């Protein structure tokens, strides 16, 4: 059994310690907001936070996160009331939406350490792939949140 703290709740899971956190979230616990995109930590669709730090769950073995506080999109806010979610709606950021859970979790982690990021800081921190190409709106929405 591996004990996990996810969104403030304790979970005991009986899985192989090598199993990536992504598949524990999705297949074992049924938390489907975190997405599979590449499996090699390139695209960021699976981004969650470990103790507030953006982490790609597809390449993170579950055994490595037992002591961490894990936050997923479901833990950001269930009702869309988080400032990033509000800004995302105001700017109509998502298109297909598939990458956005990971994108939002990465942005939240950035804003925790850098509340008013420059374009360069946003570019350096947000390396999630969005095939629909929502990048310009992501950047605009981040600046709006930072300027509130």
């Amino acid at each position, binding site marked *: 059994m591996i004990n996990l703290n996810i969104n403030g709740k304790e979970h005991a899971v009986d*899985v192989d310690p090598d199993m*990536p956190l992504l598949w524990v979230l999705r*297949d*074992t616990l*049924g938390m*489907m*907001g*975190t*997405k*599979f*995109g*590449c*499996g*090699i930590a*390139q*695209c960021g669709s699976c981004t969650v936070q470990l103790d507030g730090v953006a982490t790609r769950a597809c390449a993170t073995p579950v055994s490595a996160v037992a002591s961490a506080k894990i936050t*997923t*999109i479901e833990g*950001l*806010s*269930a009702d*869309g009331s988080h*400032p*990033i*979610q*509000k*800004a995302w*709606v*105001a*700017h*109509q*950021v*998502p*298109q*297909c*939406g*598939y*990458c*956005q*859970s990971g994108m*939002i979790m990465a942005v939240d982690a950035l804003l925790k350490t850098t509340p008013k990021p420059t374009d360069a800081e*946003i*570019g*350096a921190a*947000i*390396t*999630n*792939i*969005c*095939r*629909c*190409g*929502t*990048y*310009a*709106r992501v*950047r*605009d929405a981040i600046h*709006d949140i930072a300027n*509130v």
Partner: protein
Amino acid sequence: MNKIMKLDRRNFLKAGAAVGGGLMLGFHIPAANAAPAKNAEINAWVVVGADDSVLIRVAHSEMGQGAMTGLAQLVAEELGCDWNKVRTEFVDPRLNITRNKVYGGMATVGSRAIRSSQEYVRKAGASARMMLVSAAASRWKVSAADCAVKEGVISHAASGRTLTYGAVAEAAAKIAPPTQVTLKDPATWTIAGQPKMRLDMDEKVTGKAFYAIDVRLDGMLYAAIAQSPVFGGKLKSYDETALKNAKGVRKIVALPNAVAVVADSYWEAQKAVRALPIEWNNGGNEKVSSASIATFLGEGLAAKDVPVARNDGDVEKVLASAAKTISAEYRVPYLSHAAMEPMNCTVRFNADGTLDVWAPTQNAEAILGAAARSSGLEPLKINVHLSYSGGGFGRRGGAAPGDYVDQAVAIAKAAGAPVKLVWSREEDIQHDFYRPISSAKMTAALGADGMPVAWNTRISGHSIMSTANPAAIKNNMDQGFLVLFHDNVYDVPNVKVDYAMRNTHVPVGYWRSVNHSQNAYFRESFLDELAHAAGQDPYEYRRKLLHKAPKQLAVLEACAKAADWGKPLPTGQFRGIAQIDGYGSYAAAVAEISMNADGTPHVHRIVQAIDPGYAVNPDAIKAQMEGSVAWTLSAALYGEITIKDGRVEQGNFDRYRMLLLNKMPKVETVVVPSGGFWGGIGEPGGPAVVPALINAMLAATGKPTRSLPIIKRGTTV
């Protein structure tokens, strides 16, 4: 409130306030979550609840392009309902069978969702409105002509009476639909034509949006797959003893050209399929490489006696006697779609002989067809569960939409349990239907005034239609492959366009903007070479050649104006411009760049203009145009699928590189709908961006860029 007001960019306070009080964000509260109310189906598209909720059915797929919202806007506009009470539902493709194709074509391809269905969905909304008004008029015993409608409330001015849609919905459903329906003048639109917030936003920022890959079923197993790396290869054998001790593995399923491993979790299935030693019969294509394909296409550029698509005047004669000719060969590589949601399909055979299927798609009817074909069941026994699609870009609706469905049906049948098949990213990139490789040889003659008097174009490449729709091929001519050339609107007196079909073993298909994606680059970049040789401004050069094409000229001028064409840029920055028509729309782009020390461009700003005729949701149009910039810059800067030993060399995003946010330029879009026609949105935006960028590089360096991707420029494809 201050916080929200600052975030307000697109009228969302207005929309939110209308929903009713508090810190509303324009979230649509689905009526399904409210107390159940009796619903009356007014017609195939419109269901009105006793609580005044309005359900609008959407027959096309929502893969990010915003068609779900745009189509609902068109129906709601004619219906005259309260937009804040609208929710949507995807159409079950079985209904299109049982209701005699009332929902028209469901394929969401060719930027056609709105333009191909706008008339019948608007008529459905108008017809439903007339039935609701008629029901109110009968109740009041007055003439329907004396009743008015506003936001779902019917009123009779003379008597001051009102009734809501919900109050008369049941009666309206029993009225015969009108035979004559008049549609509103788009100039009077209040719901359509507005930058309404998308109906899928709240789900997509909370992780609640449902994609096919998210389905979970009791007793469901997971499958991972390995397909023949060489296209056309077949499975020879595999050594199952290697998985004897593999945890969680339930079954190995052999398919004609693949092996699937079924396990208790996806991770176990994926690990096992990678550990499984597999031998393939390669089928004879194992020696094909990018180099051999380049030679094959190059031979096509020189071939005699190929079919001619257009022959105005006498190109050969004019070229032979011209004082000044310019000739160039351009090349583009294969490209993969790489939609963010990998190919997946979940299948459950039920005890009562029915089948459930979940799959991301651009065409629910095609999923139904594929599941029926591969299961042998009657289509009406198959329930296609509809979901959002995590991108599509042509991969899930075009040349072979059924490959992943066929596999999942076979695997679930063999496993005797519900199975979710998920392709790895490597399988996705290595088993695509690729944007075809293509080459163009163009030769032009310039007159004394520097303007082209003859333009000869030969295109050599792998025809999409040769496999997607062979009936469209006549005498080895694939007309679609020559788009923007056979219908080139530039006024040149002598024009010849011909085609050398050079089909390889690599599967090809529809990739966002299809042949416009290649030919816009060929045509518009070569045109800039001509303007450059003539010593003329490329914008003014185009304007002269477009004097017989007012719509193309107008969108070019709108774009140039928005981009301040002609005004000086900071030192080291350069502009390029291009224009195209396609998918029923007209589009132009201006790129502003500077050159990096390594010879690659730094793109500062892209300005675009589009004339789609009517703009159903201007903000959604801008979003598509912005997205097209990212899509097309990924391709132009980095995109290349190469072949070695008959197989694709790239496997994941580490080697099939994508544009990231740090390289995303500022994008400004001007929407200039001129009315009178309905153009598409998803695909017209990208094609002009590449040549605008390439032309800015020509302005910066004086050198043309005749092959893509840019990171490999100067090398052969």
